[in-house]
């Protein structure tokens, strides 16, 4: 049963990835603009100075004289085999660019996600567990404040307080784990807040379920009931949301890397879009889609571990 479920999900993930690639291809290459002119403009060459022969040879060099479907399949094949082509503005292979920038972004994304999960789950669990009235109210209001704060504003505030005044953490750059702290907090706050909102609600719902009465009647403690019985049932909606939020990490990294001047994928994406560096943009877009797909695939694979009914389905009498 599980094997069948897994193969289904993996196939779905591959299809989504292929669709993402295809849409990117269509948008970037088939829009009414001439890729060769963009290439030349990127290289600061005046198009009017280039002879038709040179244009033709350039087109040939980039495979642009081929029919669209040939271009499409050649590129698809290249992407599948890990060949993303060469950057137009920087004249280096795209893989090399990504290799330079990826570690920084991965470190930032991972720490932001970990922080978001800890903050979100912690706030929700405490808000539900607390019995002191004012604490309960405070903890359940907190997430709505977090959701409504604009991330770049939080980032600037963090720099002002913790970098400039208290001098605890560096304001910019990506040297050492210390530089991760402020941008991670900035990225984690909105994710954690949304997560806490959803989880608080579903924990409260789960604690109202009849099986919790059964558990209480066994004489179990509140913490065992909340963690062992309610949490697993409440985790599903929060997990779905987490999948969507994690998929958007790369987008958030663009803002964080701009605010904190870090040399990551986000910054690379921003530069490449401005320079109309098509191969780089395409590689980043496909990579973002791949991240989204993989994260959600992983979450799909976690579901049945939390709720066995997802794989088994309902029985036919």
């Amino acid at each position, binding site marked *: 049963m599980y094997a069948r479920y897994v193969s289904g999900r993996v196939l779905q993930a591959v299809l989504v990835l292929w669709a993402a690639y295809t849409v990117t291809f269509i948008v970037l290459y088939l829009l009414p603009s001439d890729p060769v002119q963009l290439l030349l403009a990127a290289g600061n060459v005046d198009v009017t100075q280039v002879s038709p022969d040179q244009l033709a040879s350039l087109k040939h060099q980039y495979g642009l004289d081929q029919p669209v479907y040939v271009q499409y399949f050649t590129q698809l094949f290249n992407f599948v085999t890990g060949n993303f082509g060469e950057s137009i503005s920087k004249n280096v292979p795209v893989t090399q660019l990504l290799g330079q920038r990826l570690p920084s972004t991965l470190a930032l994304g991972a720490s932001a996600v970990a922080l978001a999960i800890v903050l979100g789950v912690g706030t929700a669990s405490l808000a539900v567990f607390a019995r002191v009235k004012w604490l309960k109210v405070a903890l359940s209001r907190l997430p709505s404040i977090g959701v409504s704060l604009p991330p770049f504003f939080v980032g600037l505030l963090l720099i002002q307080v913790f970098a400039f005044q208290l001098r605890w953490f560096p304001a910019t750059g990506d040297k050492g784990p210390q530089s991760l702290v402020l941008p991670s907090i900035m990225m984690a706050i909105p994710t954690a807040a949304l997560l806490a909102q959803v989880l608080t609600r579903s924990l409260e719902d789960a604690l109202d*379920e*009849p*099986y919790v*009465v*059964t*558990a*209480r*009647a*066994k*004489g*179990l*403690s*509140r913490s*065992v009931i909340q963690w*062992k*019985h309610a949490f*697993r*049932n409440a985790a599903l909606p929060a997990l779905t949301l987490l999948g969507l939020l994690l998929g958007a990490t790369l987008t958030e990294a663009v803002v964080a890397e701009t605010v904190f001047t870090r040399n990551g994928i986000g910054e690379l994406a921003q530069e490449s879009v401005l320079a109309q560096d098509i191969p780089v943009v395409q590689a980043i877009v496909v990579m973002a889609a791949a991240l989204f797909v993989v994260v959600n695939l992983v979450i799909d694979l976690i579901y049945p571990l*939390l*709720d*066995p*009914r997802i794989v*088994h*389905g*309902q*029985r*036919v*009498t």
Partner: protein
Amino acid sequence: MSATEAVTAVEAVDARQTPIVEINNLSVTYSREGRKSAAVSDLTLIIAAGETVAIVGESGSGKSTTANALLGLLPSGGEVSGGSIRIDGADTTRASEKVLRSIRGRVIGLVPQDPMVALNPTLRIGPQVAEAVRRRGDVPKRSLDAEVVEVLEAAGLDNPVLRARQYPHELSGGMRQRVLIAIALAGRPQLIVADEPTSALDVTVQKRILDHLQSLVRDRGISLLIITHDLGVAADRADRVLVMQGGRVVEQGRPAEILVAPAEDYTRRLIAAAPGLSSDGRVKIRHAGGSAARGGAATGPATSVADRAVAPAGSVTAGGDTATPILSIVGVTKDYRLPRSPEGQRTFRAIDAVSIDVPAGQTVGLVGESGSGKTTTLRVALGLEKPTAGRVLFEGVDITDAGWRELRPLRKRFQLVHQNPFSSLDPKFTVGQSILEPLVSFGVGDRASRSARLRELLDQVALPAAFADRRPAELSGGQRQRVAIARALALKPDLVFLDEPVSALDVSVQEQILTLLATLQDELGLSYLFISHDLAVVAQLAHRVAVLNRGVVVEQGATIDVFANPQSDYTKALLDAIPGRATAIAPVGGSADSAPVGDGADAASVVAKNASLATAPSANAPAANEKLQEVAS
């Protein structure tokens, strides 16, 4: 052991030991949005060791609140406002959560209400039982698994090793209820509180499980507190019965006393409402006319149905001179594709050559347990599901292959009342919007005529006109079901499908709804196809009964004949399972006259007797009481 012996035994125990539960003048109030309402007032209840006590009452009578107060599990807003609770000699009235925790599971075990939702769906059965076993504190870790298997086995589960590894959704309702009993037993408590333990289950399963629970409790000397809305269940099982109404105990005593000489009108109403208790143990059959008493018009279709059940291929117009039945289900078979499984079976036959006729203006009851194919039959009849074989005729017109377009005009003529009035009404709609929705959907009438029709419909289902602006949350279960009936009647249908219309309701409310349905049938000439798992309930409405078991009609005939002279073992088992019958008959002892209808009593005399009961229902209760008192003295 006779009733008197039981009582002396209890008294002897009482003298020796402190009672396990001593509730004195308990009052519980709920406060919501600043308003306080009393849920239980001045309740006194003592349960001796080994005693079985039942609290009977409708929803809102405070019976469940009493059970919750005992376990310290009152929902938020609820608090004990007076009196005291002593458990095993210790005062627990306002005890801390820690003290209460030490009582739960160890001193008092709970068998909760609805087994389908009372187990954690994300955990295997084993760990859920193990939690309760571990609370005993004296079980070494290595023998935990063995203990779990042992309690599961004690609760009557087959293959307990496998069950411990399964998830709740892989078990049937009855099996889940046994798991819950195992959990309640696992902490070796001195008292088990069973809160409506079986009302969500089929009658025969209900009987088996209650029998089993009772024998477990008896063998181990555990006290049992049964909370139920069904006086029949209480009377069959308890040494002592408390009847509660509006938070107060209105009557208490031994079941035999209460049934023979109820002191309160309310108790009398509950007795009348429990299908197995009224008419001294005979199920009350509303349409007792049977095939003989009915005129030729009814006999015709009846025989033709019988003929066709034998030979489904036979001609549909076999009745010849008779009116066409409003609905004919002819030899309908439905196969479902199974998900690919290693066992190799590719399809599941939900119903097999089912033939049922619903004569115009009459009620046909379709009885069976869950999984018997009743719902599939209903779905095929409604045109929601295409049968694998067989035909469905509406007034002689074949609608088996009719598409949405052809079926839509006919949908005005047959309507459905759902099982659960708590989920079949849109919570955001007012009552009026819900009732008028079919009219809006079919574009019938204008604003003025619709509001006139709304008043008429509310009046027909005996709801005040002011209810039109209320929302479902403000209504009780019975009132919601009246709204659902009104909605089904809005388009003036000829045929109404009733899918377990009362199984989610209290016994006394069931009675009211069934009476309403019967009245509406007489006034409007409706035909009903009435689906239920409970023969006793069907008897209160149906002219004819078809009994469905594993997708096959095992018995079909006039209600009175099926009850007086059941042909199949399955029907006999269903009849035996009706709660209350054992008790209602017990005091009369071996008198042949009062043997249960299902056990081969003289059919003719039963027909005669029930016919007279049906014509003069008010006369039967006093008569029965007289006879019981006679024997008792």
